[in-house]
């Protein structure tokens, strides 16, 4: 599904190149649940953004379902990104001005899905996440865990093949964290590929493979 060949990322500042990722080679198959670990500043988020097509690599090749992402124009990238990938962040990143329901609805709007169908999908998801009672609340009226639940719901509402989660439990206490991890596990069981970044050994165990990143290198 995902193939990275010699991917590097650097920032150029006054002619000095600062490498964040170096010669990353990686292959991820459909259905895998990968945990990325490593010290702060190792480049974990950067790797996730590149895989998620939110950022571009400085060098190297990236194939997504055998399509060369590194050669794509912005329009094609956005298209590919929005139809295949869901994102979850440590800071939830919900839209403050929108209610829970509207937050869930927005990705569908961007995909130009018809109203009736959209309403159905949102209702299903609210039901599944037990959030029907909270659907008209705004993000700041929810607890952190609840916000992260909404964020995950938003990430999966378009039924993406791949979910990228950057420290999804980082801001939550362990009880809530566990709930989120169970949810991700369940999604993986249903066939969604998941890549998560985490600092916790315990959470890493939910995955079937761990990648250790250090100073931009993958540790073998």
């Amino acid at each position, binding site marked *: 599904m995902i193939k990275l060949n010699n991917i590097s990322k650097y920032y150029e500042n006054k002619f000095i190149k600062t490498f964040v990722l170096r010669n990353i080679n990686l292959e991820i198959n459909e259905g895998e649940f990968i945990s990325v670990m490593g010290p702060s500043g190792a480049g974990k988020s950067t790797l996730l953004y590149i895989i998620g097509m*939110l950022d571009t690599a400085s060098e190297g090749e990236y194939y997504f379902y055998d399509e060369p992402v590194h050669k794509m124009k912005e329009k094609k990238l956005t298209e590919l990104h929005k139809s295949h990938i869901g994102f979850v962040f440590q800071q939830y990143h919900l839209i403050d*001005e929108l209610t829970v329901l509207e937050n869930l609805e927005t990705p569908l709007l961007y*995909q130009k899905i018809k109203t009736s169908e959209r309403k159905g999908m949102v209702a299903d998801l609210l039901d599944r996440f037990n959030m029907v009672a909270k659907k008209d609340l705004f993000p700041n009226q929810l607890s952190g865990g609840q916000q992260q639940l909404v964020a995950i719901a938003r990430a999966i509402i378009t039924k993406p093949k791949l979910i990228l989660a950057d420290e999804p439990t980082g801001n939550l206490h362990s009880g809530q964290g566990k709930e989120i991890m169970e949810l991700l596990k369940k999604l993986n069981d249903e066939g969604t590929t998941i890549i998560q970044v985490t600092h916790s050994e315990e959470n890493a165990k939910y995955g079937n493979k761990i990648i250790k990143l250090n100073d931009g290198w993958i540790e073998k």
Partner: protein
Amino acid sequence: MLKNYIKITIRSLWKNKLFSFINIFGLGVGITLCLMMLTYVIYEKSYDNYQKNKDNIYRLAFEWGKGGSKMLFAGAMPALGPALSSNYPEVELAGRVRNGGEDEFTLPNNQKVQEENFYFVDPSILKLFTFEFITGNENSSLSDPFSIILCETKAKKYFGNENPTGKTLSFKDHLFKITGVYKDLPYNTHLRCELLASYSSLEAMGIKADKPWNQWGEDLTYVLLKKNSSLKDFNSKLDELVKANAGEQFAQDVKFVIQSLDDIHWTAASFGDPGPKGNKNYLYIFLSTAILVLVIACFNFMNLSTARYFDNFKEVGIRKVIGATRVQLIKQFLFESFSVTLAALVFGSILFLITYNKFYSYLGAAYNFNRSHIASILVTILLLLFVIALIAGSYPALFLSKFNPAQTIKNDFMINKKFSFRQVSTIVQFTFSVFLILGTLTVYKQIDFMKNSDIGIHKENVVLLSLHQNPQESKSNYEIFKNELQKNSDVLGFTGAYTLPGINSRFSISIKKQDGDNSKSSKVQLIPADYDFIKTLELKLVNGRDFSKEMSTDAGESIIINETAVKSLNLNNPIGSKLIMYGSKIVTVIGVVKDFHVYSFQKKIDPCIISINPDSYFTYAIKINDKNIAQTISSIKDVWNKIFAGQVFEYKFMSDAYKALYSSEEKIQNVLSVFTLLAVIISCIGLMGFTSYVAVKKTKEIGVRKVFGAGIYNIIVLFSRQFVIWIIAACIIAIPVAFYVTNKWLENFAYRISMDITIIIISIMFTLLVALSAIGYRAIKAATANPIKALRYE
């Protein structure tokens, strides 16, 4: 999707109430001013457009005077109109229009009304101009004496729903039969005809000119010329015609001026010229100021929008992550900016509708919307909407949607980097504001200077009258009039003169020293006047003596000159100097008066000589007691009507005449002040909004600084420093430009203030003061806030 845009827009506008309000208010006011100016331009430019023959209608005005002396008369001699109707191939139609005067009409129910826009006209006028008859027609309605036609409004006013045709109105004890009603003419015509009576009625009423060719100024004479006629040829034919009929001598002084309808509107009023005049100065100054204010408001809008969108920086990132395309994001931004602009337009249009009447009546115009104006205004509004929204919305839209989402989500470091745009736009705003403040102050100072400087004449309580007749023919009446007036104890002084300060006419002649170089002569203004001229106007004699009846040589052989004349004739010992006038006439200088301003401060004082000459008293000045003014004037009127029967009694106060010299400058000043005030207000509320934005952004920084020991003073300085620097930068840009432009304007005035440092200092101080008070509130609030709270808030 649209519903979603609407929802988001409404929520974010509501969430940022202050910003929304500032944007809508500022833009709205800018739009109001622009609409005001736009309609004003359309209004002024469409004068007499309703006339079907507009391009080929001309009025035959004439200049009268000897040598350099010139008076422009709007009307011509009564015999000219009929003479043109035949024998001139280029003339299709010709006709006369005579002002009906001030007498009252008596309605059938004996009610009396006074009408301003009443004229006696030749029947041809009905075809020459465009009238839409409701009853009656342009062929026969005014062919008989004592017929009168009315506009619809007047007909309704007098007769309600009854048919007025066949009813009568009484005027000067004659019955006029109503033979037609026509649709009201638009307001923007130079001749607002509301009641028209047949010209032939004048003769039937016994009003007849004895010498219809040797008379001037009464009958507005219009011709409809065939297309492509040569105006030059026609002009010389006119001169020939007058020479043949009025005699060589009269014709010498007459020069015809063929005025197109546009000329009539844009040329300064001449004698007997009805209707309001256009003023191009107004147009240019107002239009450019309105545009400045709108630009300021637009910058405000962009400024605040970008400031606000940086708040949404993260949101933009999130939206991209969850699948928004760049186009979708741009659409959302544009939708929001279009909504704000639309709201501003609605607000601006309402404000315009509420205020336009006041504005127009202030400028002496009456605006009535007509369909074609509304269409062009609507188009302009929509265009404005589009441009403003596009400019204001596109910057943040393009700028923010460009970023790669990883960057936007991770941090908001871009805010500081992209400061330059807001910096530039704040500086631009304040540059314009400082420019306007400086301009307004300069105009104010110059007008104050002109109004309050000593003009060398005592102009209070002096009544001015002018004669519409050759004074040679009324020499005896003049003496009678003078003696009659002097019986009134409220009349303190009286003098006749060729012209008086406040009445525009000039009489220049050449003069030279008897003993000087023979070839060297200078041009001077001659004021033929009566013995009491200097006394009545309280001119200051600085040397020599006043005219005296006891001195037989004073009549004609003595002159009094002003200081400028002393200088320009280079007289070392003015009293007793002998000068040669008209090539051969020798006169002696008996006195020198201090310079006095006859014209506005725009003109330099001319060298001027005063001499006694009873043959040319066209104008009279009467100094009256400052008590019982109304009574005194009515008794003067009675005397006038008794002695100069048949001549209109038209008077004005000399002080008003002087004020009128500056009325257009004063209007510019007042409108400019309002505009400037609005510009400053808009800039300042923009600044206020911007400061509160910065305050929110910096809450954390300020909190941290306070925890580490910064005092309130430090915080306020931290806050205001950048703004003060920007405003000073704005001043540095604005002042030289303002200096240049105001100096150009001041060059219109021969007597003017010099641009001094105080105006500049006042402008800078004013701007800083206003701006700092706009900033100050937020700064103090931020500085005094509890730091722990601020940190926890984050």
